[in-house]
C-alpha cells in the first residue's frame, strides 16, 4: 500500500475513533446529573409514580450501556429516537433542517471563500501598505463583533431602511429555488461577514509566512518577475495552508450558524437545537449535537488530510 493511502486511512480511522469517543460523551452526559434528568425536568413537586412512569417512557430504567448501543445502532439505521416535547420521530424533521442549514452554510461559503482568498492574497502582497493596514484594522474589528450585532445591522440597513431583502428567512421546501435563495441572502451575508475576517487573516499569515522563506528570496534575487514568483514558486506550496484555512473556517461556519439562524428565524438545525435546549428536550439535543460534531470533525479531518497531502515533508516523515 502506498504511504499516501496509508496516511489517509490512518487519519480516517483516527477521525472515526474521535467520533466514537464524542458519541460516548454525548450519550453519557446525562449520567453526570446528580439525581436524575427526570427529576430536573418534572420539577420537585412530581410524585414518585410520575417520575417512574416518565423514566420508563424514555427508557432510563434500563442500564446505561444498553441504552447507548441502542442509540448508536439507531443512528446508523437512521432512527434518532423520539422527541420528548412533540413525541414525533426525530429523523422525520431533522433531515429538512439539516439540508436547510447546509444550504445556508454553503451559500455563505460560496461568498466568503473567494473573497477572503483574494483580499488575503492582496494584503499579503502589499503588506504594510495603507491597504494592508486598513484590512488589518477592519478585520480585527469585525472579529470582535458578536454575530447578532452584524445580523441586526444588516437587517436595519438592507431590510428595514432599504427594503431590499426580507428580514425573516422563513424558507420551506415547496419554495422555488430562486425564492429560497432570495430569502437566504441576508443570513448568508451575515455569516460571510463573520467568517470572512478570520479566513482573510489566516490566508494573509499563511502567505506571508511562505513569502519569507529563502527560496522565494532566491527567486526574487535571480530577477524573476513578481507575478511569476507568486504563480510558479509560491502558489504550489501555498495550496496546503490555504485549503487548510478554508476547511477550518467551514467548520467554524457550521457552528456560527446557530445564532444567525435564531436571528433570522431560519428553520435550520441550529434553531432546532436552541429551541430544544430551552425545552430541555434531551433526545433532540443529543441528535443535533452528534450531527454538528460529525460535520465539524469531518471538516477538521479534511483540513488535516489536505495539509499532509500537499506537503511532501509531512508525507514522508523521517
Amino acid at each position, binding site marked *: 500500500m502506498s504511504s499516501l493511502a496509508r496516511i489517509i486511512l490512518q487519519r480516517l480511522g483516527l477521525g472515526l475513533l*474521535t467520533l466514537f*469517543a464524542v458519541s460516548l460523551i454525548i450519550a453519557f452526559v446525562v449520567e453526570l446529573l446528580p439525581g436524575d434528568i427526570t427529576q*430536573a425536568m418534572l420539577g420537585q413537586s412530581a410524585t414518585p409514580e410520575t417520575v417512574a412512569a416518565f423514566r420508563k417512557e424514555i427508557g432510563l430504567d434500563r442500564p446505561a450501556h444498553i441504552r447507548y448501543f441502542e442509540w448508536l445502532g439507531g443512528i446508523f439505521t437512521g432512527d434518532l429516537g423520539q422527541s420528548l416535547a412533540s413525541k414525533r420521530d426525530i429523523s422525520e424533521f431533522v433531515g429538512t433542517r439539516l439540508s436547510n442549514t447546509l444550504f445556508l452554510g454553503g451559500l455563505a461559503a460560496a461568498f466568503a471563500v473567494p473573497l477572503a482568498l483574494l483580499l488575503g492574497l492582496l494584503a499579503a502582497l502589499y503588506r504594510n501598505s495603507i491597504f494592508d493596514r486598513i484590512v488589518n484594522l477592519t478585520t480585527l474589528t469585525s472579529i470582535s463583533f458578536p454575530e447578532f450585532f452584524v445580523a*441586526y445591522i444588516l437587517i*436595519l440597513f438592507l431590510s428595514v431602511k432599504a427594503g431590499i431583502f426580507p428580514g425573516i428567512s422563513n424558507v420551506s421546501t415547496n419554495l422555488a429555488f430562486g425564492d429560497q435563495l432570495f430569502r437566504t441572502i441576508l443570513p448568508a451575508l451575515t455569516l460571510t461577514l463573520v467568517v470572512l475576517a478570520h479566513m482573510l487573516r489566516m490566508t494573509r499569515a499563511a502567505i506571508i509566512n511562505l513569502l519569507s522563506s529563502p527560496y522565494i528570496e532566491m527567486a526574487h534575487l535571480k530577477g524573476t518577475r513578481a507575478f511569476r514568483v507568486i504563480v510558479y514558486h509560491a502558489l504550489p506550496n501555498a495550496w496546503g495552508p490555504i485549503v487548510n484555512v478554508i476547511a477550518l473556517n467551514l467548520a467554524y461556519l457550521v457552528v456560527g450558524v446557530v445564532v444567525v439562524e435564531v436571528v433570522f428565524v431560519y428553520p435550520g438545525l441550529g434553531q432546532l437545537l436552541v429551541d430544544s435546549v430551552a425545552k430541555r428536550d434531551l433526545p433532540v439535543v443529543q441528535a443535533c449535537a452528534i450531527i454538528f460534531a460529525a460535520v465539524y470533525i469531518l471538516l*477538521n479531518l479534511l483540513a488535516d488530510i489536505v495539509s499532509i497531502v500537499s506537503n511532501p515533508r509531512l508525507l514522508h516523515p523521517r
Partner: protein
Amino acid sequence: MLKLLWTAPLSAKVGVLAILAYAFVALFAPLLAPYGETAIVGSSYELWSDKFVFGTDNIGRDMLTRLIYGARNTIGIAFLTVAIAFFVGGTLGMLAAILGGAYDMLIGRLVDILMAIPSLVFALLLLTVFGTSIPSLVLIIALLDSTRVFRIARSAAMNVVVMEFVEAARLRGEGMGWIIRKEVLPNITAPLLAEFGLRFCFVFLFIAALSFLGLGIQPPLADWGSMVRETATLINYNDITPLLPAIAIAGLTVAVNFVVDWMLHLSSGLRSDSH
C-alpha cells in the same frame, strides 16, 4: 509599564483607555445609573427622551440603567469564567509539561476529545442537562475553555521545563508547587497574558451569544446579550435601541483585541513580518 505604553501604537492606547472606562462603569454602576437595576420606571418601549436617555425596554425598565448594570454583570461573569479556566487549564498544562509521561498522554488525549466537539454545541448540551443557572454557566464554559488554556500553557511550559534552572530546582528537592510558581510560571507569564485577553474576548462573546439565545444569564439580571434579545423587535420599526447593548459588547472586545494585538507584536519581536 507606563513608559512602554507611551510607545504603543494609537490603536493600543485607545484600547487601554476604553478598557479602563468599561472597568470604571462596571465598578461604580450604582453611582452612575439614574434608576435601580430591575426597577420598572415607565411603560414598555418608551422613546428616547430627557427622562429616559435611551428609552425603556420591553417591560418599562430604563435602558441606560440596564446598560450600566449590564457592564457589571456581563463583564464580571465573563472575567470570573476566564479566571477559573486559566487556573484549571494553566495548572494542568504546567503539570503536564513537568510530569510528562502517562499523565501528559492521558490529559492530552482527553483535551483532544473535548476539543473535537464544537464548544457552542457542547455547551448547549451541558446546559440542557444542568439547566441555565449562573454557576452552571460559569463552570461549563470554564471547563470548555480550560482545554484551550491547557494547550497554550503546556506548550509554553515545555520550553521552560528543559532549562537548567528547573533541573537545578528539581535536584535541590523543591516541591511541585514551588517549581510551578517560582520557576515555570514567571517565564510563561507574557504568552499567558496575551492568551488571557484573547480567551476573555472569546468567552465574553460566547456568553453574550448564549444570553442572546435566552440560555445564558437569566432575567431579571441586566445583561447585554439578553437586552438585545428583549428589545430586538424594535429594529423592525427603524429604532436602533437594540443595537446599543450590541455596540457595548463589540466596543469592549475591539478594545481588548487592539491591546492583545500590540502585546503579541511586542512579544514576537522583530520578525520577518516587519520589513
